[in-house]
């Protein structure tokens, strides 16, 4: 690309391109913007709202489970089924999947590559409104009958139960499109919009993680789309593909569903890993240890993710041979994941570590992902899984990965890039208090669930035997501590927005391109196209800016 670069002359044309992107605050400018930064911010508020909503449902679940005495029940069993389904569906489809790529990735990825925008800005806008449409359909499904199938919509229950299953499924279908559009955009951006000098191995690891995520989004989501369409047809026309009464096969639905939804698990975790790969070297002021191994391990996880779906189905009646193969392949995921963990830890070794909020969350991620990842290996072993399948052990495991890893990494990224996105610093002491509360609250909520599960407490049950009472109550108290942490977080983040711009361009002394431009960035990100000469994370030598023309 370098030889075909024409020098853009943004300076000559109207000074308004040099002002920060938040300058034009009118509602219309936000609703119709094609600026990746504004779209990232709109996505951010949307996913945070969904996180709040899903969180409220989570608190309701824990409240209901505080007591096993039916006379003290808050809700009936049917309502409970709807509440946990909404918690899962909202958190998965409306919060976690879009959270890091569409909100933070949208904002940061083009800047990291030295681009003015993503490859297809209008598609990006379309992606956002498709997301909003999907969210509205989901809300309609909730208020017109609700859904009690669990977020996995397993047949034949999902084709026979009452409620708005078809509508909720359609919402997931629409949200899938939004996810595909983001994925297409990121792949094209990474391939074609890198600044001169930005070779593949000069890209920050965040970009590698996003790229691997985008591959899964593009290749796996269409299979979910057709699965959900078939499910809708099944409900409306009684096609019978998944219905044993009509000669269909309900296990086929599980195969289809997990062919998407297991890769989707990596759509959720890879972006989290991507953020950690940025926060740790910056906050340790240390060159990344094993850059290429970490970059390739993201791609390796993406590839292996397509061939492990059967480990969700060890008890479904699939053949023992298939189970053994899926079990073996599942263990393979442990290798690239462990490579990443070792590299993050080695990166910190002898680094100059500063324990500000983003780093606190990154360290939390290492611990929680360690627990979540290793318990995943228990569940990947067939013999153990037969015992633990559909128990709270599984619930605890995936919450350690989804919430303890992905959501915590999202918080690391949120705190890391908040000054860049909004040009303001939040209150650091409050942030540290909230981080500690989140850590304590999270572990208090979910560690007991490992014990509950290994002792036989099944997931999705509305009630339980009296001997589980203590652990359930500890878990519920943990959810309150967690909620308190989030309330404090909301407090200091909103408070920071009331201030004038006070964030320096580079509060954490990072080296990637987003730290070399103003906070908040100007509309076109860069005054001139940057020319990249430095390695990423070259903390071993004095800082050499790639961006010129900044004041």
């Amino acid at each position, binding site marked *: 690309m370098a030889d075909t670069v024409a020098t853009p002359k943004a300076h000559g044309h109207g000074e308004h391109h040099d002002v920060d992107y938040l300058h034009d605050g009118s509602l219309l400018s936000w609703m119709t913007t094609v600026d990746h930064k504004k779209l990232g911010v709109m996505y951010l508020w949307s996913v945070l709202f969904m996180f709040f909503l899903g969180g409220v449902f989570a608190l309701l679940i824990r409240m209901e489970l505080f007591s096993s005495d039916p006379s003290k029940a808050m809700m009936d069993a049917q309502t409970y089924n709807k509440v946990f389904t909404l918690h899962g569906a909202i958190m998965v489809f409306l919060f976690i999947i879009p959270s890091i790529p569409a909100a933070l990735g949208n904002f940061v990825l083009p800047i990291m590559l030295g681009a003015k925008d993503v490859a297809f800005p209008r*598609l990006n806008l379309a992606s956002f409104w498709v997301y909003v449409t999907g969210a509205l359909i989901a809300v309609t499904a909730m208020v017109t009958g609700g859904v009690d199938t669990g977020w996995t919509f397993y047949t034949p229950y999902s084709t026979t139960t009452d409620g708005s299953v078809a509508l909720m499924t359609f919402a997931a279908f629409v949200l899938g499109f939004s996810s595909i559009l983001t994925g297409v955009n990121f792949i*094209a951006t990474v391939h074609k919009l890198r600044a001169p000098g930005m070779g593949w191995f000069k890209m920050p690891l965040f970009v590698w993680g996003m790229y691997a995520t985008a591959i899964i989004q593009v290749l796996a989501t269409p299979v979910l789309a057709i699965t959900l369409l078939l499910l809708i047809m099944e409900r409306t026309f009684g096609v019978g593909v998944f219905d044993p009464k009509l000669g269909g096969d309900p296990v086929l639905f599980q195969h289809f569903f997990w062919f998407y939804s297991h890769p989707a698990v990596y759509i959720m975790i890879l972006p989290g890993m991507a953020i950690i790969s940025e926060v740790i070297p910056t906050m340790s002021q240390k060159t990344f240890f094993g850059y290429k191994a970490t970059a390739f391990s993201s791609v390796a996880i993406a590839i292996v993710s397509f061939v492990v779906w059967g480990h969700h189905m060890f008890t479904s009646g699939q053949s023992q041979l298939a189970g053994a193969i899926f079990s073996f392949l599942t263990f393979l995921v442990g290798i690239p994941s462990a490579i990443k963990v070792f590299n993050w830890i080695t990166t910190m070794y002898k680094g100059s570590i500063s324990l500000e909020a983003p780093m606190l969350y990154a360290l939390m991620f290492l611990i929680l992902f360690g627990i979540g990842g290793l318990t995943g290996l228990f569940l990947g072993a067939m013999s153990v899984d037969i015992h633990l399948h559909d128990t709270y052990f599984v619930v605890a495991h995936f919450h350690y990965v989804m919430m303890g890893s992905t959501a915590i990494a999202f918080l690391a990224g949120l705190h890391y890039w908040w000054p860049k996105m909004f040009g303001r610093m939040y209150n650091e002491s409050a942030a540290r208090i909230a981080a500690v509360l989140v850590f304590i609250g999270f572990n208090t909520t979910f560690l007991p669930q490992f014990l509950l599960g290994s002792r036989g407490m099944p997931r999705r049950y509305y009630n339980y035997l009296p001997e589980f009472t203590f652990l359930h109550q500890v878990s519920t108290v943990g959810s309150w501590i967690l909620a308190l942490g989030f309330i404090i977080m909301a407090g200091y983040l909103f408070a920071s927005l009331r201030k004038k711009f006070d964030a320096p361009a580079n509060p954490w002394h990072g080296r990637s391109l987003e730290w070399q431009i103003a906070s908040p960035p100007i509309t076109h990100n860069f005054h001139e196209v940057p020319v990249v000469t430095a390695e990423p994370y070259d903390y071993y030598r004095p800082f050499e800016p790639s961006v010129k023309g900044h004041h």
Partner: protein
Amino acid sequence: MSSESHVAGHGAEPSFRQHHFINAEQQFDTSKLGMWLFLATEILMFGGLFVGYGLMQSVYPEAWVAGHHHLDRIMGAVNTVFLLCSSFTMVMAVHAASQSEKAKTVRYLLGTLVFAAGFLVIKYFEYSHKFHDGLLPGTHFSYHGGGPPQQAMFFGFYFAMTGLHGFHVVVGMALITWIMLRAMRGEFSSAYYTPVDLVGLYWHLVDLIWIYLFPLLYLVS
């Protein structure tokens, strides 16, 4: 392009270049990559249906054979020819656009539209025949001619696959009409014909999927 193009309006800069691309070539390459990625998603989506269809065929082979006897091979073959011809006219339209031949581009696009419409007309007759005979998916199946009950599932797949494909034909016709109107306004030339090229790619995929659907559904035995 409309609102951003003033940023790009520097002397010799072409008006179609969007501001975040360094030059027209980069814009073209990026658009094409994006389209290929989209086509990959389409193939995977239909791929799910193909897998389900193949799996159920292996479970109920006699129902599949019985079911496919209700399909009219002649009509299917004519439709295959229609789509192949439409792909040819589409290739010619893209070529004409790349040579700045406006009149030819419009003519070939019109030809593509006519073949696509012919496809849908035949599909309409096929569908109404099935409706009339009660050859409908799943629980709506009310055919009285006998045969294995799983024919109901065969027709579930038949309508799902041809229906989704038909939807793609309709979307393709809308896209072709759109670029035809733009071609009439003289928006394309050898310097810029990306939309024609991309709609062409999409149309070939629609054709290709039918090339697989025809033998799968009509030529089972």
